[in-house]
C-alpha cells in the first residue's frame, strides 16, 4: 500500500513514533449525503471520492523531535512544529466523537495567534495529547538537566580551586614547622 507519510518527510535520523489518520466517522455527514446523491449522477460519487482522498491523504505524525501534518494528494503540504516550541495543547470531543473514540487536538506555539497546528478527528485524542506533552516536557527536562550539569561543572571547578589552595597552605605549614 502507498504510504502517505514516510521517513522521507522527516529529518534524517528522526524517529517516527506514530502516524495517524483522521477517523472516517468524522465525515459521516458527507458520506451519507454522497450515498444519497449517487442516484442523481456523478455528484454523489465525486463527493465520496473527495472525502476518501481527503481522509487517505491526511496524516498526523509524532516523531521524537516534532509534530507533522501532511495533507494533499496531487499537491502536498508538510507542516512541522518542533516539540520544544509547543506552548499549550487543547483537545476537544463532541458527544458523538466520544462515542466513536476520536477528537481534535489543537497545538499553539509562541508565534502568531491562535492555533498553529490542528490534529482533526484523531483517535484517542486524550492519550495522544498526553504522549505528546510527556515527550515535550521530557525534552524540556533534558534541557534543564544539561543546565544543571554545567552548573555542577562550575562548582567542581570551584571545589578544585579550594583544594589546591588548601594543599598550598599545607605546604607552607610544613615549611614553617
Amino acid at each position, binding site marked *: 500500500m502507498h504510504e502517505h507519510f514516510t521517513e*522521507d*518527510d*522527516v*529529518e*534524517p535520523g*528522526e524517529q517516527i513514533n506514530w502516524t495517524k489518520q483522521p477517523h472516517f466517522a468524522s465525515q459521516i455527514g458527507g458520506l451519507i449525503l454522497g450515498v444519497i446523491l449517487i442516484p442523481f449522477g456523478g455528484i454523489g460519487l465525486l463527493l465520496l471520492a473527495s472525502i476518501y482522498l481527503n481522509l487517505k491523504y491526511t496524516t498526523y505524525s509524532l516523531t521524537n*523531535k*516534532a509534530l507533522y501534518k501532511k495533507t*494533499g494528494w*496531487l*499537491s*502536498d*503540504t*508538510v*507542516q*512541522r*512544529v*518542533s516539540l*520544544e*516550541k509547543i506552548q499549550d495543547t487543547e483537545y476537544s470531543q463532541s458527544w458523538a466523537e466520544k462515542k466513536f473514540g476520536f477528537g481534535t487536538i489543537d497545538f499553539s*506555539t*509562541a*508565534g*502568531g*495567534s491562535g492555533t*498553529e*497546528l490542528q490534529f482533526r478527528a484523531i483517535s484517542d485524542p486524550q492519550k495522544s495529547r498526553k504522549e505528546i506533552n510527556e515527550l515535550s516536557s521530557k*525534552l524540556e527536562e*533534558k*534541557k534543564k*538537566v*544539561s543546565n544543571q*550539569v*554545567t552548573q*555542577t*561543572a562550575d*562548582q*567542581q571547578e*570551584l*571545589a*578544585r580551586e*579550594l*583544594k589546591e*589552595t*588548601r594543599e598550598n*597552605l*599545607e605546604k*607552607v*605549614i610544613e615549611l*614553617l*614547622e
Partner: protein
Amino acid sequence: MNLKLNSSSSLYPNEMANENIKLQPEIKGSLSTLSSTLLVSGGFFVYFLLQGSILLSLLGVIVPTVIIFAYSKYLKQTTYTITDEKVEYDREIFGHTNQEIPIKRIQNTRLKRSFLQKKMGGYGTIYISTAGSRGSDLTLRSIGNSKNIHRKISELDNALYDDDYSSEETPSNTEALDVSTEATKLREASEKFRKVITDSRNTTTGDTNA
C-alpha cells in the same frame, strides 16, 4: 543555479561561510503562478488564429514571453540564504529589502508543493513562522530541492538544542569534589597555619625572654 553574492555585513560573525546555502526562486517552480497568464494568452492566440488575423494572434505569443522574461528577471533579484544561525531574504529591486530570521526564533515551518511543482522536479514553497508578530514571517518561494531544504531547516533547528544537550554527554571530571567540604578543609588548614604561626612566635618570644 545563478548564485548572487551580496556584500551586506552580517550580524553573526562566527557563521561558517562554507555551510551557507544560497537559493533563488526559479521560474520553473513558479509555473503554477503563471499558468493563468499562459492559459489566457493561449486562448487569445488560438481565437485570433481561427479568426484569420495573424498579427493579433502573435500578440498572444509576444505578451506572455515578455511577462515570463520579466518575471524571471524579477526572481533573479531575490536571494535566500540559509546558514546555521539564520535564514535570510534579500531582494534588490525597486530598492533593497533584507530580512533575517534567526534559526532559534523559528516556531514552525510548512512546505507546500503543488502538483505541477512536484512534476517539474521537487520545487516547492517553504513558509516560516517566527515567534515575532504575525506579519514578519518569511516565505521561500518556488525553490528547487524544496523537500531537502525543508529537512535542512528542521535539522538546523534541532542542532541548536542538540548543542545544549551535548554538555550532558561529557560528565565533569574524574573525582567528584564537594564545594562545602573543600571549603571546610581549607578553613581547617588556615586555622592550623595560624596556630603554627602563633606557636612559633610564642617560642621565639619565649627564647628572647629566657
